[in-house]
């Protein structure tokens, strides 16, 4: 599609770029674009950030479907533990055990494997790679006015390392001993000892290997995003003129670059304990009928290393969604984002604080209770920049002229989810309350709403909004809106009731609840949650159909800037080639949010300031 020659229509944008733009002689150097001469270099080993973005997106969708289907299987187990699951045997094989009466039951080992894989896949492959990978790649060069990433080759490698990580993880699902089943946090000793769980054998080895490749992917991508934002901004694009999307991707990349290596070091020590007989995490263990040689290690050390990534990781997931939502809300409210600088400072504050709160995941892990005091303080401080962001989003709607479409609806839905899920974080971050709520369904409700559903909403807002930029066609609006309402109601129906389970003390990661009197009294609610999950999943199928249908059959884009947006990506041709702008690079004259200023509905960033006009922030 990108190769299809479209007769250039000279528009106002072209004239502005021609008049004020920056000539980097791109055309003379890259005439004929030898990088994209055949199908393989164009669509597979592509170095074009726009293609790489699509690769991340579609791979992410593949994983999202796998992860969601896994959740349906374990939800069936939780909602309908007495139901016959023999019909799943063709897919799950020996993990469905059939008794003499022909009754099929999900094996507990595999239940835990599903829970573990669901977490790993969603956190890393979908909400990190699929979300940040897609939109950082798509939008950073387009919105800062760059031809491509600073290193297109590393960018390509970034995707293919992610792909490799995915292949390894996928293969691990088919091991005879089962995939890793010790929870996505992979705490040793459970993750270190095959005697403790069959998935901790080959499954765990492949899990670690996969995630190490994944970290390589994140680092290659991240270093590119940071370099591109710092060095490849076009003329006039000062940091204070960056759209909030770019600020969010930029800080996200920094977080990833600083925290993921720590995770790898944690994994490395775990590998040593597993295969070289070291004792970093292991001490005084008697298992499988024998006392192990390991003495002197501490499982807590792993938790520190893990959560030093793990906590920034949740902001690595949510910050890009926040950036996308800020942009979408502003564009479709036809209003500047309220408090742009406060939004930037909030992102920076959240990014900084995310590094000094990790131990709030460990209040009940046996660390010295005194230490927790600091982590409580820093954790609850995060509520302040988060609250500022919420108030600013709401203020952005105030006085607007809101264009309702799938993108803006998902952005509004994001704010609702972020409020609901964020507020419960104030309970959990307070260590005293966490004593009771730690590792209960309250936590499941909290993080699914605030970083699962909310991040998905940000991602959907982004997909519906930038789909025309990706494919030159629109996604279907009716289906998009149907998808939105179904998902909004469905997601709340799934996760809201879990708060009550958590308050009643029901622990997470339980295969059945009926072994305890206190936890077994909610079977009606668990059935309701399972049915809601199935319905919500069905609504995601509408999205999938819509997505692929629209790639080929969607309504064609006829103007470059269908949303009337100010940012640079909408000044490129409808089907931008590699290099994004056919001629000069656009020069930036103003910030990205002049909507409704001086009676004009929108003023693109490439439009020079009028005489006497001042920047609005």
């Amino acid at each position, binding site marked *: 599609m990108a190769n299809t020659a479209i007769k250039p229509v000279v528009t106002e944008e072209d004239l502005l770029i021609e008049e004020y733009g920056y000539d980097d002689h791109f055309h003379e150097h890259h005439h004929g674009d030898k990088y994209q001469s055949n199908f393989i270099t164009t669509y597979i080993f592509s170095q074009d950030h726009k293609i790489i973005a699509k690769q991340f997106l579609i791979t992410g969708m593949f994983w999202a479907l796998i992860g969601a289907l896994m959740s349906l299987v374990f939800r069936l187990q939780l909602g309908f533990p007495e139901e016959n699951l023999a019909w799943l045997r063709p897919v799950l094989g020996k993990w469905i055990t059939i008794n003499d009466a022909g009754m099929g039951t999900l094996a507990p*080992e595999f239940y*835990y494997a599903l829970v573990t894989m669901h977490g790993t896949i969603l956190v890393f492959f979908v909400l990190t790679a699929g979300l940040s990978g897609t939109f950082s790649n798509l939008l950073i060069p387009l919105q800062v006015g760059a031809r491509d990433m600073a290193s297109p080759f590393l960018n390509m490698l970034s995707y293919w390392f992610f792909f490799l990580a995915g292949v390894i993880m996928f293969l691990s699902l088919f091991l005879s001993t089962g995939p890793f089943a*010790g929870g996505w946090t992979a705490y040793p*000793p*459970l993750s270190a000892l095959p005697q*403790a*769980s069959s998935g901790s054998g080959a499954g765990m080895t492949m899990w670690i290997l996969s995630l190490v490749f994944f970290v390589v992917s994140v680092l290659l991508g991240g270093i590119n995003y940071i370099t591109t934002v710092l060095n490849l901004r076009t003329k006039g694009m000062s940091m204070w003129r960056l759209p909030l999307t770019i600020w969010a991707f930029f800080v996200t990349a920094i977080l990833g670059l600083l925290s993921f290596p720590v995770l790898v070091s944690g994994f490395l020590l775990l590998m040593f304990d597993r295969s070289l007989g070291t004792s970093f995490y*292991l*001490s005084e*263990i*008697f*298992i499988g009928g024998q006392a192990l040689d390991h003495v002197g290690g*501490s*499982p807590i050390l792993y938790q520190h290393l893990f959560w030093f990534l793990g906590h920034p990781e949740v902001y690595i997931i949510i910050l890009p969604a926040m950036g996308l939502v800020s942009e979408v809300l502003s564009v479709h409210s036809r*209003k500047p984002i*309220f408090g742009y*600088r*406060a939004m930037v400072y909030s992102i920076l504050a959240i990014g900084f604080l995310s590094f000094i709160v990790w131990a709030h995941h460990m209040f*009940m*892990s*046996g660390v010295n209770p005194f230490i*927790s005091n600091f982590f*409580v303080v820093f954790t*609850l401080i995060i509520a*302040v920049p988060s*609250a500022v962001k919420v108030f600013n989003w709401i203020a952005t*709607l*105030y006085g*607007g*002229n809101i*264009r*309702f479409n799938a993108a803006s609806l998902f952005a*509004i839905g994001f*704010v609702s989810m972020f*409020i*609901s899920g964020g507020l*419960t974080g*104030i309970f959990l971050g*307070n*260590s005293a*309350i966490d*004593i*009771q709520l*730690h*590792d209960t369904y309250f936590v499941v409700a909290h993080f699914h709403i605030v970083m699962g559903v909310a991040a998905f909403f940000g991602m959907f807002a982004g997909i519906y909004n930038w789909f025309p930029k990706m494919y030159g066609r629109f996604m279907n609006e*009716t289906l998009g809106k149907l998808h939105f309402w179904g998902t909004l*109601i469905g997601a*709340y129906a799934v996760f809201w009731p879990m708060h009550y389970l958590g308050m*009643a003390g029901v*622990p997470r990661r*339980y295969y059945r609840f009926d*072994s305890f009197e*206190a936890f077994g009294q909610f079977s009606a609610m668990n059935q309701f949650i399972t049915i809601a999950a199935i319905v919500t999943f069905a609504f995601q199928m509408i999205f999938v159909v*819509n997505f692929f*249908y629209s790639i080929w059959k969607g*309504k064609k884009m006829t103007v470059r800037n269908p949303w009337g947006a100010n940012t640079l990506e909408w000044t490129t041709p409808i089907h931008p080639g590699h290099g994004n702008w056919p001629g000069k690079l656009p020069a930036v004259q103003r910030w990205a949010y002049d909507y409704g*200023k001086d*009676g004009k*509905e929108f003023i693109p960033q490439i439009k020079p300031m009028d005489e006497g006009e001042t920047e*609005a922030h």
Partner: protein
Amino acid sequence: MTVLLAILCILLLTVIVVQIGRVNELATKIRGEEEIQARANSRHGALSLVFMIVFLLATVISAMYYKDHMLWYGPNTSASEHGSSLDYMFNITLFFTGIVFVITQILLFYFAWKYRGEKGRKASFMPHDNRLEVVWTAIPAVVMTFLVVGGLDAWNEVMADVKSDEDVMEIEATGFQFAWQLRYPGPDGLLGTRNFEMIDATNPLGQDWTDKKNIDDIQPSELVLPVNKKVRVRITSRDVLHNFYLPHFRVKMDAVPGMPTYFVFTPKITTEEYRQRLGALKADGTPKYPEWYEPSDPSDPESPRRYENFNYELACAELCGQGHYAMRRLVRIVSEAEYEAWLGEQQSYYMSSIRNTDADPWKDMLFDSEIKERAAEFNDRVSQALSSGNASDKVLALDHVSYQPGSAELTALSRYQLDNLVSVMNNYPNMVIEISGHTDNTGDAASNLQLSEARARKVYDYLVGKGVATARLSAAGYGQTRPIATNDTPEGREKNRRTEFRIVAQ
């Protein structure tokens, strides 16, 4: 066939979805894009408002419906002293976040509806407002400060370890795949030392039996605690991470291999009192919590009501493998007196499972308590025999007298029962006894006879050496001629190898 049908269904649904989407495109063509967008704005603006109302109502109604499971309310009252301070923090936080939740959700969806796009409406240009932003930075900051101070105050009090002069009982809980092993210190009030390398099938906690503090430690199957008594739980793990979780007591702490942790708490409601709370009646005589009045076995309406069967529970709250969900132990909180009675019934693990086995380092000695117990038991038997008129009751076994294998040499521990016999002889100066030796039927009958005689003689000599007059004693060997049990089993043969005495005169 089913697969084919499923694929067909999916295809059909896909077509339907696509067709729904087409409707929109057709409408756009007919009515024009602007018109369609205006309709969407008013429709989805209104839907936002409807959603807001339904959503907020649903949150309130569901909270009312589940109020009995909320911390602090109704049946979910904390059963420990510190728990109420945590529940209080929970509710304070619920109060503030509830206000913020309602206000922000209302504003979000209300603004979405109020400012839905309309022809001719112009969005206002409002890039920022410093005063407003300072206000909504300051308010959360103040509220957070309040919550942090309250929370940390509660936290540091709850998590504080016991002071050295405090009156507190210490017990131990050890997690392993997939159960909890409990340990109580026994009468000495001290838990003995452990070493994970000593763990085996008979020593699940790796207790070091050479440490005498371990001798009286008990391993009960239930967690029984006296009400209103501060308890420090030492929490350990044998293999992977576990978490000692008492939901009703707001107690939760990881069990970490190689690093004991602890939790200090005071139970304040006995199991019986908690049951009564759950079964409480309203003023009009109807149950306060009807769900607790349902039969505990749904298939049997005559079974006890749920509240009558209520029990506190100990669970695991840290993923530990495939049996994680079933690490249940019963918890009973009882009055001080009931606790003492229960404790008195418990036997030390060492005494019930280790004593006199190969693993017992104290095989060659008797503990003072055992010496006393045996003496009392022996005197008991003697006085029963004396008061009985039945001749067969006058024969008493010297069941703790034994010899080196194949010889008449007394084992070291035999002297305790022989000393008991000496004091019986001293207490009853008229008593005359006959000591008899017996063997089983293995080996040669003649040499068995000889051995039994020698053994009886050995006991005779011992008693004489202790000053019992020879006139009151006689000794005889009967070899294998008088078995009291079958010689076909090892247990029977063991019974037949014996030394006994018969009261000839009293």
